[in-house]
Protein backbone atom coordinates (compact mmCIF):
# COMPACT_ATOMS: atom_id res chain seq x y z
CA UNK A 1 0.00 0.00 0.00
CA UNK A 2 2.79 2.40 0.87
CA UNK A 3 5.07 1.19 -1.87
CA UNK A 4 4.76 4.44 -3.83
CA UNK A 5 6.25 6.21 -0.79
CA UNK A 6 9.39 4.11 -0.71
CA UNK A 7 11.51 6.11 -3.19
CA UNK A 8 11.02 9.16 -0.96
CA UNK A 9 12.85 7.49 1.90
CA UNK A 10 15.98 8.25 -0.10
CA UNK A 11 17.37 11.57 1.18
CA UNK A 12 17.94 12.87 -2.32
CA UNK A 13 14.34 12.29 -3.41
CA UNK A 14 13.04 13.64 -0.12
CA UNK A 15 15.08 16.79 -0.61
CA UNK A 16 13.72 17.36 -4.10
CA UNK A 17 10.16 16.67 -3.01
CA UNK A 18 10.35 19.01 -0.04
CA UNK A 19 11.86 21.82 -2.10
CA UNK A 20 9.06 21.37 -4.65
CA UNK A 21 6.46 21.46 -1.87
CA UNK A 22 8.04 24.59 -0.48
CA UNK A 23 7.94 26.30 -3.87
CA UNK A 24 4.29 25.30 -4.26
CA UNK A 25 3.00 26.22 -0.80
CA UNK A 26 4.93 29.39 -0.05
CA UNK A 27 3.15 31.62 -2.63
CA UNK A 28 -0.24 30.19 -1.61
CA UNK A 29 0.50 30.96 2.02
CA UNK A 30 1.68 34.51 1.34
CA UNK A 31 -1.23 35.39 -0.96
CA UNK A 32 -3.72 33.71 1.35
CA UNK A 33 -2.42 35.54 4.41
CA UNK A 34 -2.54 38.87 2.58
CA UNK A 35 -6.09 38.28 1.36
CA UNK A 36 -7.27 36.98 4.72
CA UNK A 37 -5.72 39.79 6.74
CA UNK A 38 -6.88 42.58 4.42
CA UNK A 39 -10.37 41.09 4.33
CA UNK A 40 -10.40 40.65 8.07
CA UNK A 41 -9.00 44.09 8.82
CA UNK A 42 -10.90 46.16 6.28
CA UNK A 43 -13.98 44.43 4.94
CA UNK A 44 -15.27 42.11 7.65
CA UNK A 45 -18.06 43.72 9.69
CA UNK A 46 -17.25 45.18 13.09
CA UNK A 47 -18.15 42.95 16.00
CA UNK A 48 -21.09 44.49 17.84
CA UNK A 49 -19.85 43.38 21.25
CA UNK A 50 -16.12 43.89 21.04
CA UNK A 51 -15.93 46.53 18.33
CA UNK A 52 -12.78 46.44 16.23
CA UNK A 53 -10.59 44.69 18.80
CA UNK A 54 -12.22 41.46 17.60
CA UNK A 55 -10.20 41.82 14.41
CA UNK A 56 -7.25 40.33 16.31
CA UNK A 57 -9.17 37.08 15.98
CA UNK A 58 -8.13 36.68 12.35
CA UNK A 59 -4.53 36.17 13.38
CA UNK A 60 -4.98 34.78 16.91
CA UNK A 61 -7.29 31.88 16.10
CA UNK A 62 -5.26 30.44 13.17
CA UNK A 63 -2.06 30.70 15.20
CA UNK A 64 -3.70 29.04 18.21
CA UNK A 65 -5.20 26.22 16.12
CA UNK A 66 -1.96 25.43 14.33
CA UNK A 67 0.22 25.75 17.40
CA UNK A 68 -1.67 22.67 18.63
CA UNK A 69 -1.71 21.15 15.14
CA UNK A 70 2.04 21.46 14.74
CA UNK A 71 2.61 19.69 18.04
CA UNK A 72 0.27 16.90 16.97
CA UNK A 73 2.07 16.43 13.67
CA UNK A 74 5.40 16.54 15.51
CA UNK A 75 4.16 13.80 17.80
CA UNK A 76 2.92 11.66 14.93
CA UNK A 77 6.16 12.14 13.00
CA UNK A 78 8.14 11.32 16.15
CA UNK A 79 6.08 8.19 16.75
CA UNK A 80 6.60 6.93 13.20
CA UNK A 81 10.30 7.79 13.41
CA UNK A 82 10.67 5.70 16.57
CA UNK A 83 8.57 2.75 15.48
CA UNK A 84 9.89 2.36 11.94
CA UNK A 85 13.35 3.83 12.60
CA UNK A 86 13.06 6.44 9.86
CA UNK A 87 15.84 8.98 10.15
CA UNK A 88 14.18 11.50 7.81
CA UNK A 89 11.22 11.78 10.16
CA UNK A 90 13.54 12.51 13.10
CA UNK A 91 14.89 15.40 11.09
CA UNK A 92 11.38 16.58 10.31
CA UNK A 93 10.51 16.73 14.02
CA UNK A 94 13.44 19.09 14.56
CA UNK A 95 12.37 21.12 11.53
CA UNK A 96 8.87 21.58 12.90
CA UNK A 97 9.69 22.54 16.49
CA UNK A 98 10.74 26.21 15.93
CA UNK A 99 7.72 26.83 13.69
CA UNK A 100 5.36 25.54 16.32
CA UNK A 101 7.08 27.62 18.98
CA UNK A 102 6.71 30.73 16.79
CA UNK A 103 3.00 30.06 16.26
CA UNK A 104 2.54 29.53 19.98
CA UNK A 105 4.32 32.80 20.73
CA UNK A 106 2.06 34.60 18.22
CA UNK A 107 -1.03 33.10 19.81
CA UNK A 108 0.18 34.18 23.26
CA UNK A 109 1.04 37.76 22.25
CA UNK A 110 -2.13 38.34 20.29
CA UNK A 111 -4.24 36.70 22.99
CA UNK A 112 -2.74 38.97 25.59
CA UNK A 113 -3.20 42.04 23.35
CA UNK A 114 -6.81 41.01 22.74
CA UNK A 115 -7.33 40.46 26.43
CA UNK A 116 -6.16 43.91 27.48
CA UNK A 117 -9.18 45.85 26.09
CA UNK A 118 -11.58 42.99 26.87
CA UNK A 119 -10.59 42.05 30.40
CA UNK A 120 -8.71 45.19 31.41
CA UNK A 121 -5.49 43.33 32.18
CA UNK A 122 -2.70 41.95 30.05
CA UNK A 123 -3.00 38.48 31.44
CA UNK A 124 -5.93 36.43 32.61
CA UNK A 125 -5.68 32.75 33.44
CA UNK A 126 -8.11 32.00 30.68
CA UNK A 127 -8.27 28.47 29.32
CA UNK A 128 -6.85 29.22 25.90
CA UNK A 129 -4.02 31.44 27.07
CA UNK A 130 -3.03 29.01 29.82
CA UNK A 131 -2.85 26.01 27.55
CA UNK A 132 -0.90 28.04 24.98
CA UNK A 133 1.59 28.97 27.69
CA UNK A 134 2.05 25.33 28.69
CA UNK A 135 2.40 24.42 25.03
CA UNK A 136 5.20 26.98 24.69
CA UNK A 137 7.01 25.27 27.56
CA UNK A 138 6.54 21.91 25.85
CA UNK A 139 8.13 23.28 22.67
CA UNK A 140 10.99 24.80 24.64
CA UNK A 141 11.46 21.43 26.33
CA UNK A 142 11.93 19.73 22.95
CA UNK A 143 14.54 22.34 22.05
CA UNK A 144 16.36 22.14 25.34
CA UNK A 145 16.42 18.35 25.23
CA UNK A 146 17.88 18.36 21.73
CA UNK A 147 20.51 20.92 22.73
CA UNK A 148 21.64 18.99 25.80
CA UNK A 149 23.07 16.13 23.72
CA UNK A 150 26.45 16.37 22.03
CA UNK A 151 25.47 13.75 19.47
CA UNK A 152 22.83 15.16 17.10
CA UNK A 153 21.32 11.80 16.25
CA UNK A 154 20.78 10.84 19.89
CA UNK A 155 19.37 14.30 20.56
CA UNK A 156 16.94 13.97 17.67
CA UNK A 157 15.71 10.58 18.92
CA UNK A 158 15.29 11.93 22.44
CA UNK A 159 13.30 14.85 21.03
CA UNK A 160 11.09 12.34 19.21
CA UNK A 161 10.36 10.47 22.44
CA UNK A 162 9.48 13.72 24.18
CA UNK A 163 7.27 14.79 21.26
CA UNK A 164 5.34 11.53 21.51
CA UNK A 165 4.88 11.90 25.27
CA UNK A 166 3.79 15.50 24.71
CA UNK A 167 1.34 14.45 22.02
CA UNK A 168 -0.36 12.07 24.44
CA UNK A 169 -0.45 14.85 27.03
CA UNK A 170 -1.55 17.84 24.95
CA UNK A 171 -5.25 16.84 24.84
CA UNK A 172 -5.21 15.96 28.55
CA UNK A 173 -3.63 19.33 29.37
CA UNK A 174 -5.99 21.21 27.07
CA UNK A 175 -9.19 19.73 28.46
CA UNK A 176 -8.08 19.79 32.08
CA UNK A 177 -7.16 23.47 31.76
CA UNK A 178 -10.52 24.19 30.18
CA UNK A 179 -12.27 22.36 32.98
CA UNK A 180 -10.15 24.15 35.60
CA UNK A 181 -11.06 27.46 34.00
CA UNK A 182 -14.80 26.89 34.16
CA UNK A 183 -14.38 25.75 37.75
CA UNK A 184 -12.73 28.99 38.83
CA UNK A 185 -14.02 31.72 36.56
CA UNK A 186 -17.57 30.97 35.51
CA UNK A 187 -18.96 32.09 32.19
CA UNK A 188 -17.58 35.63 31.99
CA UNK A 189 -15.05 34.81 29.29
CA UNK A 190 -17.02 32.41 27.14
CA UNK A 191 -18.31 35.33 25.10
CA UNK A 192 -14.98 35.22 23.30
CA UNK A 193 -15.71 31.87 21.75
CA UNK A 194 -19.25 32.27 20.60
CA UNK A 195 -21.01 29.12 19.43
CA UNK A 196 -21.91 30.63 16.07
CA UNK A 197 -20.06 33.16 13.96
CA UNK A 198 -21.41 35.27 11.13
CA UNK A 199 -20.44 33.97 7.68
CA UNK A 200 -19.05 37.37 6.72
CA UNK A 201 -16.53 36.98 9.55
CA UNK A 202 -16.04 33.26 9.00
CA UNK A 203 -14.64 33.53 5.47
CA UNK A 204 -11.54 35.63 6.22
CA UNK A 205 -10.96 33.46 9.29
CA UNK A 206 -11.11 30.27 7.24
CA UNK A 207 -8.79 31.74 4.60
CA UNK A 208 -6.29 32.64 7.29
CA UNK A 209 -6.53 29.22 8.92
CA UNK A 210 -5.82 27.48 5.61
CA UNK A 211 -3.00 29.86 4.67
CA UNK A 212 -1.31 29.46 8.06
CA UNK A 213 -1.42 25.70 7.40
CA UNK A 214 0.22 26.31 4.01
CA UNK A 215 2.80 28.52 5.71
CA UNK A 216 3.54 25.71 8.17
CA UNK A 217 3.97 23.19 5.35
CA UNK A 218 6.21 25.53 3.37
CA UNK A 219 8.39 26.42 6.35
CA UNK A 220 8.64 22.78 7.43
CA UNK A 221 9.73 21.68 3.97
CA UNK A 222 12.32 24.42 3.74
CA UNK A 223 13.77 23.77 7.19
CA UNK A 224 13.61 20.02 6.59
CA UNK A 225 15.63 20.43 3.39
CA UNK A 226 18.18 22.54 5.25
CA UNK A 227 18.54 20.02 8.06
CA UNK A 228 18.85 17.26 5.49
CA UNK A 229 21.77 19.09 3.85
CA UNK A 230 23.43 19.39 7.25
CA UNK A 231 22.94 15.73 8.09
CA UNK A 232 24.17 14.53 4.69
CA UNK A 233 26.83 17.19 4.13
CA UNK A 234 29.48 14.65 3.05
CA UNK A 235 27.31 12.93 0.44
CA UNK A 236 27.75 13.26 -3.26
CA UNK A 237 24.20 14.36 -4.04
CA UNK A 238 24.50 17.35 -1.73
CA UNK A 239 27.56 18.58 -3.59
CA UNK A 240 25.82 18.04 -6.91
CA UNK A 241 22.79 20.03 -5.80
CA UNK A 242 24.86 22.87 -4.45
CA UNK A 243 26.82 22.89 -7.71
CA UNK A 244 30.28 22.95 -6.24
Amino acid sequence: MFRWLHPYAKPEKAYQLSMAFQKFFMPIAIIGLLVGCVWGLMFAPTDYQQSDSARIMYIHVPAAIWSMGVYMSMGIAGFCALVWQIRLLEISVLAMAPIGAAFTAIALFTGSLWGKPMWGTWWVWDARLTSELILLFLYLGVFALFQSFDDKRTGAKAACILAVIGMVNVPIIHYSVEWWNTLHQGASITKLDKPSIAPSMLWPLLINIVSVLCLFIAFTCYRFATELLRAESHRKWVLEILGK
Partner: protein
Amino acid sequence: MGAFESFADFLAMNGYAFYVWLSYGLAFLLIIGLFVWSKWQRKSIEQEIGQQQQVRTVRQQQVNSEMKL
Protein backbone atom coordinates in the same frame (compact mmCIF):
# COMPACT_ATOMS: atom_id res chain seq x y z
CA MET B 1 -13.98 51.27 2.09
CA GLY B 2 -15.27 48.07 3.63
CA ALA B 3 -16.46 48.38 7.19
CA PHE B 4 -14.87 51.82 7.70
CA GLU B 5 -15.86 55.32 6.62
CA SER B 6 -12.37 56.56 5.78
CA PHE B 7 -8.75 55.50 5.85
CA ALA B 8 -8.19 57.42 9.08
CA ASP B 9 -11.05 55.44 10.65
CA PHE B 10 -9.40 52.26 9.43
CA LEU B 11 -6.15 53.21 11.09
CA ALA B 12 -7.89 54.23 14.31
CA MET B 13 -9.78 50.90 14.61
CA ASN B 14 -12.41 52.53 16.83
CA GLY B 15 -9.80 53.34 19.43
CA TYR B 16 -8.30 49.84 19.43
CA ALA B 17 -5.53 50.81 17.01
CA PHE B 18 -2.71 50.04 19.44
CA TYR B 19 -3.87 46.50 20.22
CA VAL B 20 -4.87 45.53 16.71
CA TRP B 21 -1.83 46.91 14.91
CA LEU B 22 0.63 45.78 17.53
CA SER B 23 -0.70 42.23 17.45
CA TYR B 24 -0.60 42.06 13.65
CA GLY B 25 2.83 43.68 13.63
CA LEU B 26 4.23 41.24 16.20
CA ALA B 27 2.78 38.26 14.36
CA PHE B 28 4.34 39.27 11.08
CA LEU B 29 7.60 40.19 12.74
CA LEU B 30 7.80 36.68 14.22
CA ILE B 31 6.96 35.01 10.92
CA ILE B 32 9.48 37.13 9.03
CA GLY B 33 12.04 36.48 11.76
CA LEU B 34 11.53 32.74 11.39
CA PHE B 35 11.89 33.11 7.63
CA VAL B 36 15.13 35.12 7.88
CA TRP B 37 16.52 32.72 10.45
CA SER B 38 15.79 29.69 8.23
CA LYS B 39 17.41 31.43 5.24
CA TRP B 40 20.46 32.32 7.32
CA GLN B 41 20.78 28.73 8.59
CA ARG B 42 20.69 27.42 5.07
CA LYS B 43 23.26 29.88 3.84
CA SER B 44 25.66 29.06 6.66
CA ILE B 45 25.31 25.34 5.97
CA GLU B 46 25.95 25.90 2.27
CA GLN B 47 29.07 27.85 3.14
CA GLU B 48 30.23 25.15 5.52
CA ILE B 49 29.81 22.47 2.87
CA GLY B 50 31.65 24.64 0.36
CA GLN B 51 34.58 25.05 2.71
CA GLN B 52 34.68 21.33 3.41
CA GLN B 53 34.75 20.70 -0.30
CA GLN B 54 37.59 23.18 -0.82
CA VAL B 55 39.66 21.54 1.89
CA ARG B 56 39.02 18.20 0.29
CA THR B 57 40.09 19.29 -3.20
CA VAL B 58 43.23 20.98 -1.85
CA ARG B 59 44.14 17.80 -0.01
CA GLN B 60 43.51 15.69 -3.08
CA GLN B 61 45.79 17.92 -5.14
CA GLN B 62 48.52 17.59 -2.52
CA VAL B 63 48.19 13.82 -2.55
CA ASN B 64 48.27 13.77 -6.35
CA SER B 65 51.40 15.92 -6.50
CA GLU B 66 53.12 13.75 -3.89
CA MET B 67 52.28 10.66 -5.93
CA LYS B 68 53.96 12.23 -8.95
CA LEU B 69 57.12 12.91 -6.97
